[in-house]
């Protein structure tokens, strides 16, 4: 009987072969946008990624709980039904560096991504849609981070 780990590592080998054969995307090695991830706020992060001034929009949605029991793991999602999206960003306004994630969208995936972020304190979380036509739209939501446990 195979373990899941064996199955996984075997598939890793297969993928390795694919990569050698030039069948795997090279984007894994693409440049990481350091300036954007060092930005202190949304406007600077968007600017570093080549976008203009963000405008709040009802067509973009940000999902997350109203209260997080622990700031170390906060489930958040960003989505939009608008066509022509190039990139979706997730930001935590009051984190030392606001930008958490950038998703490059293709036609093969829905513009709807969920992940989990760290939050140092109660803050707005922001979803930004960078459109093909240069528009930058965003939505935000406050998530309260509570002090949990015995505090010791």
């Amino acid at each position, binding site marked *: 009987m195979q373990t899941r780990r064996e199955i996984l590592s075997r598939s890793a080998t297969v993928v390795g072969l694919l990569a050698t054969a030039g069948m795997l995307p090279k984007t894994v090695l693409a440049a990481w946008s350091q300036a954007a991830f060092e930005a202190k706020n949304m406007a600077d992060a968007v600017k570093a990624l080549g976008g203009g001034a963000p405008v709040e929009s009802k067509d973009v949605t940000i999902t997350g709980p109203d209260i997080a029991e622990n700031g170390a793991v906060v489930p958040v999602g960003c989505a939009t039904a608008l066509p022509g999206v190039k990139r979706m960003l997730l930001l935590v306004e009051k984190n030392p560096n606001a930008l958490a994630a950038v998703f490059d969208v293709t036609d093969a995936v829905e513009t709807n991504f969920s992940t989990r972020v760290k939050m140092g304190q109660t803050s707005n979380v922001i979803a930004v849609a960078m459109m093909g036509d240069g528009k930058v739209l965003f939505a935000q939501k406050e998530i309260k981070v*509570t*002090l949990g*446990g015995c*505090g*010791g």
Partner: protein
Amino acid sequence: MNASIPLVFATAAVVAVVIGCGTKPAASSQDLDREAQAAVKASFRDEGIAKTDRLNQDLGQSACSSDKPPPEAVADQIMSEARASVKWPANGMYFGDWREGEKLAQNGRGMTWTDPSTATSANGGNCYNCHQIIKAEISFGTIGPSLYNYGKNRGVTNLAAPTAQGVIEYTWMKIYNGKTSNACSNMPRFGHAGLLDQRQMADLMSLLLDPKSPVNQ
């Protein structure tokens, strides 16, 4: 905290000697008390500031170590010893700064084996773990009663008024040694056990009783 004889298990030890070890009938309750005591002794080691002498129980601890309350006479003894233990603040300095009190109330640190020191300055009050206090803090425990409007509900409008004196003394006593009014109270004895110093307790007093404290707004 003085380690007097562990009451619950002390009787067990005597019985055990009479019966003797090694026999295997259904273990009596006293046998099990003795075995539990031995298990506790054998299962812990010192770590950081938390030494194994913390396992020694005083009268109140041992008498409140079962699912049944202690006999009335024992409870009375615990409460009267608790009342005798209370040290009143020097120069009648019952009050400090409610802002500092709020910080202490929020702070849940102190006395664990990962804490660096047993000094009172290293300790928080742990209050929000069990109590609601100011309304803005929604993350509060419910093991103890809500303390929101603590002073207001007790009619305290002026800390210097003679009518407030009873509530002030009661509150100090409760913080210093909560076993004064309830022998098996869940609340740590902040003064008696040396967890908080006089100044820190005065800050908590202000948080609870000062008419300007958000607790009473």
